[in-house]
């Protein structure tokens, strides 16, 4: 009898707890459905239609995809520039922030001040940053060309040069990657000092300690930073919108920018949706590849 009463009060309390939870999660529910999964499904559906955004959509099967793969003037350039940019930006930003974090993890004077300095570019509004760097890259009187001239080198065209535009934009991305530094620092501060000391006593030099102690201990953090940086940089669009308009030539027509061009400049919603589907699959493939390397790395660390 008493047991029964107790059980029912527990379940009543449990019900109440459940109700509170569902109430609290209403915002997330809308986020997951209306803002994320439903539009993702919708983009797949839309990709089978020819639609200018106003008249009735016309079903054309795989017509959009066929056109993209065979006739599109941006397709190859956009894939190439997106992957090229993302690759350079991820490698550059992760290496840069790891190196800076390693330095900041040492017992150097003014650590807090330096940490702030490396972090500030991340907090600056992106468009301001791009406009400012446009001036630094300026062909005649920009800062970088001044520096090159002082070193006796010939001036470069940076953003106006088909070869240099992507590396130049990547420099900006690296400069603004202060958030990665802070996350690396957090990871490094968690590496037990004992391990370092033990390795030191065993006669490991600084490089050996870094490779055999530090890297395995922060490998989840490295993975996290690479993953978030990859997803961010594959979606690159701001430099094209604010600086290059996809140029020079088509050298910075990133996939996101092409989706924007077709969807909002040329009002080809269905066609842009098909592009978005291809983009989605591309990001998915990269994410899966990344996750598969992580597994082997984790096992490697365990052995």
């Amino acid at each position: 009898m008493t047991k029964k009463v107790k059980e029912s009060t527990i379940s009543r309390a449990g019900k109440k707890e459940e109700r509170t939870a569902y109430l609290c999660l209403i915002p997330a529910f809308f986020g997951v459905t209306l803002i994320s999964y439903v539009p993702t499904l919708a983009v797949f559906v839309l990709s089978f239609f020819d639609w200018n955004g106003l008249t009735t959509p016309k079903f054309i099967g795989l017509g959009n995809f066929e056109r993209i793969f065979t006739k599109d003037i941006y397709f190859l350039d956009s894939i190439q520039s997106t992957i090229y940019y993302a690759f350079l930006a991820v490698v550059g930003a992760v290496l840069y922030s790891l190196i800076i974090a390693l330095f900041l993890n040492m017992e150097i004077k003014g650590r807090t001040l330096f940490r702030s300095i490396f972090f500030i570019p991340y907090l600056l509004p992106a468009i301001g940053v791009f406009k400012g760097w446009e001036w630094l890259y300026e062909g005649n009187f920009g800062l970088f060309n001044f520096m090159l001239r002082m070193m006796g080198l010939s001036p470069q065209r940076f953003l106006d040069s088909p070869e240099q535009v992507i590396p130049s934009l990547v420099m900006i991305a690296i400069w603004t990657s202060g958030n990665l530094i802070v996350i690396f620092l957090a990871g490094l501060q968690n590496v037990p000092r004992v391990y370092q000391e033990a390795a030191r006593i065993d006669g490991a030099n600084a490089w050996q300690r870094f490779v055999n102690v530090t890297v395995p201990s922060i490998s989840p953090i490295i993975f996290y930073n690479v993953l978030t940086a990859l997803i961010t940089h594959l979606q690159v669009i701001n430099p094209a919108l604010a600086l290059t308009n996809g140029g020079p030539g088509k050298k910075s027509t990133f996939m996101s920018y092409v989706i924007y061009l077709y969807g909002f400049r040329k009002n080809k919603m269905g066609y842009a949706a098909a592009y978005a589907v291809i983009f989605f699959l591309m990001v998915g493939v990269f994410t899966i590849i990344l996750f598969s390397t992580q597994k082997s790395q984790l096992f490697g660390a365990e052995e």
Partner: protein
Amino acid sequence: MEKQLVKRKKNKKEKLINLVATFIVAILSAFVLLPIWWIFRSSLMSTGALNEYPPSFIPHEWLWSNYSKALETFKYWTYFKNTFSIIIPAVLFGTITAIFCGYAFARLRFRGKKLFFNLCIGTILLPGMVTLIPLYVMWTRGLGLGDTYWPLILPYFTGGGFFNIFLIRQFLLTIPTELDEAAAIDGASRMRILWTILVPSIKPAIVVVGMMLFIQIWNDLLQQIIYINSMDKFTFAIALTNFTGSFGTNWPIALAATFMTILPGIGIYILGQKSFVEGIVLTGMKN
């Protein structure tokens, strides 16, 4: 004796290494600051002075008038008002909803928790570019909210993206449940416990969430461009993109406008930097 000597030698070596490291870091940080200084310095010079070689590191005369000239066409305070009428509600409600959702995941038991949690994690990997067109159709054609700020604000009322919910949850998990239980015995309701006990103790996480949302919205040029058409509704991001284009080669004026838009970012950083760095440092560890 010998051991001590080795130790002292090592300390000396370590000190030297740290000194060299400090030196390198100082030089690197100078390089990081140089672009900001160069933009500022150029915004105070005349076009003629900008084109001099060798360039001067500090302007010979400080032309603050560039700023008033920029303000004649660059309606700073309009853009300021517009930008913040998106940022304030989005950051505020984004943070509040993130707290509710993070709390449910960290503290409450309910059916379907694991499934829903995984569905939420999936959204992090979902590129925003993919959902852009259907969302645009929904907000403009479906709900008739084109050329308003709503499509830029309302999506943040969903916990501001799952990453922020996750962050709050991770932080709450580090707070001992004894705290909640003690308060519950005293008769406090769940919501009361959340807002009076838990929220104050995860302040750094809340500051991080707020600032991340702030940066995210500030940098979201694409959505601002596609949803906003009227010039009197322009935000900093749109206005700056158009402004420098229309100003052609008058760099000092364009850079004055640029520098003015950078300023609020620096201001916010100075306000919240301690909690911000602390918050990220703590969250990075709690995976």
